[in-house]
């Protein structure tokens, strides 16, 4: 039976998410079946970067209503979305962020050292068969979209599926 692993990504910072994806791609390359769970700010790295007011006013009920309770949607959700736009190339650092200067310098340093960018790692992870799973509660509470992501296939699951996956896995990380 193949070895399995899960990574729960809660953080939205470049350094942490990058580490998570390094582990995921490395393990997947070594034949481990990896599942990555994204909750809260973890979702940010998968978002397509959109303009400030790109978010649609009205959600499409039959598409977005699958995982969301649209009746309880509120104004705070688009407001949070406005200042939490995410995007793999726009994540801050957990330390030495220096109001955006830190990530820019880090990216420069990583390019010089030939370290794959987060976007490349996400694409690699997808190609190596890493599964991406989003938390349904976060999608509902934060009014997130499952269509507007840089990875083509995501699953939406809850804590029961997470329990099953983690109990079956040999390694469970929480970043």
């Amino acid at each position, binding site marked *: 039976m193949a070895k399995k692993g899960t990574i729960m990504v809660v953080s939205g910072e470049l350094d942490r998410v990058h580490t998570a994806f*390094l582990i995921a*791609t490395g393990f997947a*390359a070594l*034949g481990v079946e990896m599942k990555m769970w994204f909750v809260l700010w973890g979702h940010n790295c998968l978002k397509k970067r959109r303009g400030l007011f790109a978010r649609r006013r009205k959600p499409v009920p039959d598409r977005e209503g699958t995982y969301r309770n649209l009746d309880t949607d509120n104004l705070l959700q688009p407001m949070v979305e406005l200042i939490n736009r995410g995007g793999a190339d726009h994540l801050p650092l957990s330390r030495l962020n220096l109001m955006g200067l830190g990530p820019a310098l880090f990216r420069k340093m990583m390019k010089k*050292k*030939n370290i*794959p960018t987060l976007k490349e790692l996400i694409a690699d992870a997808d190609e*190596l068969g890493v599964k991406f799973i989003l938390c349904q509660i976060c999608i509902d509470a934060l009014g997130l979209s499952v269509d507007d992501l840089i990875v083509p296939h995501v699953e939406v699951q809850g804590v029961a599926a997470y329990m099953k996956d983690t109990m079956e896995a040999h390694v469970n990380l929480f970043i």
Partner: protein
Amino acid sequence: MEVTREIDVTGRICPGPLIAVAKEIRRLDAGALLRVTGDDPLFEETILEFCREGNHVVIETKREGKRVCIVLQRSTVS
């Protein structure tokens, strides 16, 4: 036996070479040979570990300075 595919991951660092080799070996038939060249400080250990994990056979390892050239054979069991 003829080497079916050859890749050069010189300049790429961990986990770049590993990802490249993993992607490449999936495209090969069982028993086919892949030659991979790299100069990452952990390149040799990484590829040897990759072979142990996936039951691939290391046919040859050649070191020239920093560059290491490894020929491996894709496992016949998948």
